[in-house]
Each structure stands twice: as structure tokens, then as C-alpha cells.
């Protein structure tokens, strides 16, 4: 695309300039045509993003207004930080922030440990039976397919007070049945078990893929040197898997301010008795908006979440970039 070389050598400078100009024009024209065509392709998607992602972003101004439906978002009165003052004046704010962070921390650690353990076990049996190893992967992944509505049914079958499997089993061994849907202190454990059950299979497949990608020659060399399987796991598999683990951990930490609404809303059956441990930012925003109808408080909590969440994502990406530059998202 060296434009001057396209021109005849013996033309007068004026003619050359004109030809050059035309050639540039033609190329620029072709480029514009290409860009416009490609832009047209993106249009529907960009439109959806504009309406359903960007417009709501500007909607965070609602948190700084006394929103009245009949005045609309733009017409409502500005009230500065009043909504935030109300929100942080209640006990709710501390409770939902602590619950969100604590429960997510529990989930992140538990899912990581269980998924890694499963992946390591799967790796050990990989060579011995392809059929069984596929069976394990499918079965362990299976719960990932269910919505939290369905999971609520599973949990209810286990925990409901009068007929649940757990209480019947407790009675059979002479222990008093527990009114699970009213004992808030049990739910950090219950919800952790549910999360692990739903997600561990998914993540174990991710980690197994990471393990399979390790060069088998390392293991062959280690075997020749007489290293036990246990030692190989600690000295080869886990160190080589570390980058993947670190990235996934950091990415989850970036999302730690966002709770899984379905888990906390459906699986607890939204029981008010359980709020002390299971009310998180997302359920609070939903309830405040739709049940209580307090748009100001709800949007204050939502905006607080969005802003803190944003900085946590930036922070986690900065950390990823420092540890593993190729894996940073941006």
C-alpha cells in the first residue's frame, strides 16, 4: 500500500500530487465503506447495550434524588446525599454489607477447595477408566444446570420441618428436629453447602482442563526419579496450576460485593427469620424497592454497591496484572 510507488516516476509534481490525492481518496473511501458496513452490523447489539446497560448507569442519579414516579427521573428533586444518610443511619447497612462480604468469602474459599480437590481426584483416575471419569464429571456438573427455584425445592425436601429428610433422620437417631427455616445461625453453612453443590463441578472441570494442559513429561520425569503421586501433586500439579487459581480467586474477589440474588432469595424462601444472616445487598435492594417501595433507600444501596463493586473490580484486575500480566482482563 505504498502510495507514491504506484505513481509514474516521470510525471510533473502537480500531476503527481493530483493522482496521489485521488488515490488517497479512493482508499479512504473504501475504508469508510468498510467501517460503515461493520458499524451497521454492530448496531442492534450496541442499541441493546445502550438501552439496558448504559441508560441504567445514568440512572444512578436516582440515588441523589427524591424520586417521584409522576415527575420522572429527570424531573424529581435533587436531595444530595440524604438517601445515603438514611441508609447508613439504619442497622441494615452494616448487616447487609457484612453478610454479603462474609458469605461470599465463605463461598469463594469453599468452592475453590472442593473444586480443586475434585479436579485432583479426577486427574488421578483419568488414565484408568475413561467411562467412569466421564460419569463423575457429568454427575458433579449436573447441579450447575438447575435454577435456584428448583434448588429451593431440593433444599425444601431436605430441610422442611415436619417431613424433611434431615429432620426425619435426626429423629430416627434420637436428636430433636430443628426448625431450619427459623434458625438463622445454620444458614451460612447451609448456603455454603448449596453453593458448593451447585458450582464445584463447574470449576473442577475448569481446573481439570488446566491440569490436562500440563506437559506430561514433567510427570514422567518425576516418576523416573521415584517421586510419589502425592509428591507430584504438591510439586508439579499445584504449582503449575497456581496462576489459574490466583486469577480465578482475584476475579471472584472483584465480585465479592455482589451476592447471588437467587441463592439468597429463593433458597431461604425469603424467610424474614433468616435475615440476620442471609439478608445481603441484592435482596435488600429488591425488597426495599418492590415490597417496601422506598426507591430512595433501594437506589442508595444499589449505587453504593455499584461504586464499591467497580473499584473492587479495578483493584482485582490491577492485582492480576501484577501477578500474571497476560491474564489481566484489561
Amino acid at each position, binding site marked *: 500500500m505504498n502510495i507514491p510507488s504506484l505513481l509514474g516516476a516521470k510525471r510533473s509534481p502537480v500531476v503527481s500530487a493530483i493522482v496521489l490525492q485521488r488515490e488517497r481518496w479512493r482508499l479512504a473511501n473504501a475504508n469508510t465503506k468498510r467501517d460503515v458496513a461493520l458499524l451497521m*452490523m454492530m448496531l442492534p447489539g450496541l442499541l441493546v447495550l445502550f438501552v439496558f446497560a448504559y441508560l441504567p448507569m445514568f440512572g444512578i442519579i436516582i440515588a441523589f434524588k427524591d424520586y417521584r414516579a409522576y415527575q420522572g427521573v429527570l424531573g424529581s428533586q435533587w436531595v444530595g446525599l440524604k438517601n445515603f444518610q438514611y441508609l447508613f443511619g439504619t442497622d441494615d447497612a452494616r448487616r447487609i454489607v457484612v453478610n454479603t462480604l462474609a458469605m461470599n468469602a465463605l463461598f469463594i474459599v469453599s468452592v475453590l477447595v472442593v473444586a480443586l480437590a475434585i479436579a485432583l481426584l479426577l486427574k488421578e483416575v483419568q488414565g484408568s477408566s475413561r467411562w467412569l471419569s466421564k460419569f463423575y464429571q457429568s454427575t*458433579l456438573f449436573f447441579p450447575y444446570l438447575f435454577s435456584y427455584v428448583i434448588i429451593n*425445592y431440593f433444599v425444601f425436601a431436605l430441610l422442611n420441618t415436619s417431613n424433611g429428610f434431615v429432620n426425619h433422620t435426626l429423629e430416627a437417631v434420637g436428636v430433636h428436629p430443628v426448625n431450619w427455616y427459623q434458625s438463622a445461625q445454620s444458614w451460612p453453612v447451609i448456603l455454603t453447602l448449596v453453593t458448593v453443590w451447585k458450582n464445584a463441578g463447574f470449576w473442577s472441570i475448569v481446573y481439570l482442563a488446566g491440569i490436562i494442559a500440563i506437559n506430561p513429561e514433567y510427570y514422567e520425569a518425576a516418576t523416573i526419579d521415584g517421586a510419589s503421586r502425592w509428591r507430584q501433586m504438591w510439586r508439579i500439579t499445584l504449582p503449575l496450576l497456581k496462576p489459574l487459581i490466583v486469577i480465578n480467586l482475584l476475579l471472584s474477589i472483584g465480585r465479592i460485593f455482589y451476592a447471588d440474588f437467587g441463592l439468597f432469595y429463593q433458597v431461604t424462601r425469603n424467610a424474614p427469620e433468616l435475615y440476620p444472616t442471609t439478608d445481603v445487598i441484592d435482596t435488600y435492594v429488591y425488597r426495599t424497592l418492590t415490597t417496601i417501595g422506598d426507591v430512595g433507600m433501594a437506589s442508595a444501596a444499589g449505587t453504593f454497591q455499584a461504586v464499591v463493586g467497580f473499584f473492587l473490580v479495578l483493584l482485582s484486575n490491577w492485582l492480576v496484572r501484577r501477578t500474571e500480566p497476560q491474564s489481566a482482563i484489561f
Partner: protein
Amino acid sequence: MVVLPTKPPRLRAGYRRVRPGQIAIHASLLLLSFLFLFPLVLLVSASLSSETDISRYGFTLVPRRVTFDAYQYVLQEPSQILTAYAVTITVTAIGTAAGVLVMALLAYPLSRPDFSWRRPLSFVVFFTLLFSGGLVPLYILVTHYLQINNTLWALILPYLVMPWYVFLLRAYFAGLPRELIDAAKVDGAGEWRIFFQIVVPLSRPALATIALFCALTYWNDWYLALLFINNPALVPLQYLLYQISTNIQTLQTSSQAFGVTIPALSAQMAIAVLAIGPITLAFLAVQKHFVSGITLGGVKGD
């Protein structure tokens, strides 16, 4: 990070000998698999039990006496369930087809190094992964400004473009041989024609994987219905299940007309089984793609 599904390297022969430790590992994996399937078995068993057995013996792994009363009861007046199925199927079909098309069209120009707007527009898509306005603005937008609550649009549009999948597709498209596109251009094909006749056919595996995950999202969704739907004719399956679990009266009011006893718990479980049936069958049919889809998404693209 997008590592496309690769075949595991074949393990050398010495690796394959069964070691005693392996039996223990198989045993623990079997136990774990059983534990993971346990709630499902419990649910199916309850749906096949009579109401009296449930209240006497509770939920059991195997029904005391197998009866199909619950299913009979649920299916004798199936209009509500059929409507919910129809809504779910419609939303899933339209949402998946439109979503994959729109996302592929969004991703393809971003994969073209010669596209002048590539960097700024990539950022426009990407930023939505970092920051979101949250529930309140979306709720007000949909109900107050767009006024598409209580329409199928409210169940489809919010999930149409998922930025993460757009980047997976972009990475996949970027890996296609450039020469094919350049050659088509020399032959005078326009951008749209290149996309539909060269890019799409070459990208079938990636598009199928994305379609699978989109379909799962739409099939399982109750959240948008919880927010935006009150019209019983537009209630999708998952939301119907939610309503049933919070309000057994949904069943009782419709049954009082017939003067029959309500197999409340077993009927609830039967409806749940009917809801997870199709997804279970679909999973068994295409589980390979799910697994390769995870490894596609599990590691990050450039």
C-alpha cells in the same frame, strides 16, 4: 485465555496400570457423585409417593409405595403448566436465536484488526462488565419509560447481549484465517456476505456453545418474571414453580372446584420434576458441548 477445547494428550502405557490408591479414589468419587445426585433422587421419589406416606414417613430416598397420583393430579388440569411451558419455550427459542445473532454481529467487527472503531467500541462493550447501574434504574426504565413490563420483551431483551460471550466470540473470530476474508474481499464480497457465508459456517462450534449457554439462561430464568410479569398468561415455567412454592393456594384454589384432596407436597415435587425433565434430557444429549464450553470460557481471551 480462550483455550479451545483440546483433546487430552494420550497418556503413556505405564501410566495406565491400576494402582491400589486408585480404588480408594474411585470409591470417594463414587460417593461424592451419589451425594450430588441425592437431592434429585429425593425429589423424584417424593413425586412418586402418596401424600399420606410423605406426611407419615417424610421424604424418603425410595417411595414406600409408588403412585402416580401426583402426576395425574397435576396433569388433569394442565392448562397453567402448558401455558408456562409455551412461554418458556417461546422466550428460550427467540432469545437464543436473536441473542446469538446479535452477539455474533457485535463480536465480529471487533475481531477485525482493520476496523477503525475497534478499540473504542470494544471498550463500550467491555465497560458494561465493570459497572452496572443495578436493579433500581433498570426497574424504573422497564416499567416507567419503556413500559414493556407484562410483555415477552421484558423476558427477552435484558439478557440479549451478554458481554462476556461477546468477548469469547470475538476471540474465536480473531482466530479464523485472515486469508479467507481477504480473498473474499478481493472477489468483491461485501462485509455482510463475508460474515454470513464465511465467518458463520466456520464458527459453528463456538456459536453452538454460546447458544447452549444462552438457552440455559433463558430456560432457567425466573428473575425477569419476578420483576416484570403479573399477567398469568405470560408466566414462564420457573416463575410458576416459584409461585407454587410460595403459595400453595395456586394449586388449592384450582382444585377446590373439583372437590378432590390436594396432594400438595407430592404435586409440587411432580411439577418440579416436569420442569427439570427437559433440561436433564437436553444435558444428556449434549453434555460434551457443555464441558467444552466451560473450558472455552474458563480461560481468558486476549
